[in-house]
């Protein structure tokens, strides 16, 4: 349980720091340095932990969470349209490939973090449903001896069409979840779907709960990626799989230049014309550049405790699927 422990340590440091400052204020030494090795270490820790990147801007860590929240709050309504426009529909293929790599079997418990508008969750449900139907067809064709209970249940339509699979969509942003729920309602997804408001750095789930953890195009927006990875490790069952679909570094120099040109020249314009929001899309393309490349991210995943970590670059490295197992 790394996250709560570090939070406790941090608040402890904060309390000590404020107490020291108060002691210093009383004799009138407002700006005096508390001195001593502990004081100096605390200050340097605070300084290091305070600043981070928001796209190409530098902001404090407290600010980043709020700013990212506002970005997704304003893009939520046009999120899917913009995804199609920006990637020319290719994002659908990427997400399909993620599911294909996952190969869930009926009975899988999936946690989709930063899953906002539900793209991965819906694909998972479709896949599992198709699998289950296929299995039933094969059973009937082979004329296996179905028990009377199973036949009765089938006639009564009581059987779970998903075969016990469940997906929990977790997102920090209320607007994105709202859009996701609307989509689910419109497309008729009801069973096996749960929507939870939660922070990837501090998931509201118990240990060892899920078979698969996915995060698609979400982890680069998290302030502390290592904490998110540790949380992923915590909530997965032993034998569980971590899958991350994220923009990554392009390996071909020519394509890299074209991609840069497209990202920085065209995408903010598309954002302005279609969604009326230049700055959010500027942030999105800049945040892609700030995300570590494939190898570095692989090492970060290994640091969190995952084993057999591999990655697969798609579309010349524009996106990459990282996979790791909790063993």
């Amino acid at each position, binding site marked *: 349980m790394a996250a709560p422990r570090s939070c406790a340590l941090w608040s402890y440091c904060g309390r000590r720091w404020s107490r020291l400052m108060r002691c210093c204020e009383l004799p009138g030494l407002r700006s005096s340095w508390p001195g001593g090795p502990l004081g100096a270490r605390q200050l340097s820790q605070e300084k290091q932990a305070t600043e981070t990147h928001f*796209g*190409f*801007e530098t902001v404090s860590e407290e600010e980043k969470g709020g700013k990212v929240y506002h970005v997704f709050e304003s893009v939520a309504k046009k999120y899917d349209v913009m995804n199609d426009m920006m990637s020319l529909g290719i994002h659908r293929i990427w997400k399909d490939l993620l599911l294909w790599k996952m190969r869930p079997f009926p009975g899988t418990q999936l946690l989709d973090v930063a899953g906002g508008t539900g793209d991965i969750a819906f694909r998972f449900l479709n896949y599992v449903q198709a699998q289950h139907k296929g299995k039933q067809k094969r059973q009937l064709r082979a004329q296996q001896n179905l028990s009377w209970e199973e036949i009765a249940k089938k006639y009564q339509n009581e059987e779970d069409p998903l075969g016990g699979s469940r997906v929990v969509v977790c997102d920090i942003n209320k607007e994105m979840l709202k859009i996701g729920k609307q989509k689910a309602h419109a497309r008729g997804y009801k069973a096996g779907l749960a929507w939870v408001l939660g922070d990837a750095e501090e998931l509201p789930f118990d240990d060892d709960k899920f078979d698969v953890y996915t995060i698609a195009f979400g982890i680069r927006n998290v302030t502390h990626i290592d904490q998110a990875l540790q949380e992923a490790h915590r909530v997965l069952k032993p034998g569980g799989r971590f899958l991350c679909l994220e923009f990554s570094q392009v390996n071909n120099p020519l394509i890299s*230049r074209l991609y*840069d*040109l497209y990202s*920085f*020249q*065209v995408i*903010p*314009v*598309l954002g*302005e*014309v*279609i969604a*009326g929001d*230049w*700055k959010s899309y*500027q942030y999105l393309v800049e945040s892609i550049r700030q995300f570590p490349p494939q190898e570095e991210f692989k090492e970060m995943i290994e640091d969190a405790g995952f084993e057999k970590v591999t990655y697969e670059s798609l579309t010349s490295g524009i996106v990459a699927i990282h996979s790791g197992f909790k063993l």
Partner: protein
Amino acid sequence: MATLLRAALRPLRPPPGHRGPAADVLLRGVRHGAGQLYPEHIPTSPLQKVLLAAGSAGMALYNPYRHDMVAVLGETTGLRALKVLRDQMKRDPEGAQILQERPRILLSTLDLDKLRSLPEGSLGQEYLRFLDVNRVSPDTRAPTRFVDDEELAYVIQRYREVHDMLHTLLGMPTNMLGEIVVKWFEAVQTGLPMCILGALFGPIRLHTQGLQVLVSELIPWAVQNGRRAPCVFNLYYERRWEQPLRALREELGITDPPMLVRALA
């Protein structure tokens, strides 16, 4: 001394291995804060301006309620016309004062009580009535973002804020028909490509009865008045609230509209 100077100048030189500023800007866009000439300014490359102009023109036609797209079209295409307008303003004494003092027509700068207390028929009263009847507010104008010159950014902002004044001067409501008439007037006065495009393509979305009236009576009237009147952006409206509207119209040579546009729309 020399070492201090060198140390001071070092951050100005680009680091070695740098691709070259032009190529970098083209690929990666301008860095945050760099080249920002006024708050809300977003520096854009020529390619981005072309894409923005094309995209905003298309979107404005597709969805006429996207007023922000019309604004963006004006900003990205209007550089030359804005320069001409700015020079016109500089030559006129009242216009030069506007450029220097940079007044803004916003709810925070308008003294609504004072305007309401003005006599009937004055510019202030008529402007307030226009705002009330059409249920618009001067604060809904988007700030300028894509103009790469700070003075021209003010000029286009002033143009947007004076637009409501023109509605009052011409007696046009804010429905589609009224807006097109005002656009024709503005097109003749300013030569802004956005006004010209709006004037030419706006009527596409009108029904035939409105179109007939527009072409036969309203457009000739608007063009005539636009040609006859001096540059309406040289007027310091904030100092003319007490002036009777009729007198102002006479001063500018604007005749009464040929018919009540509200009845038709």
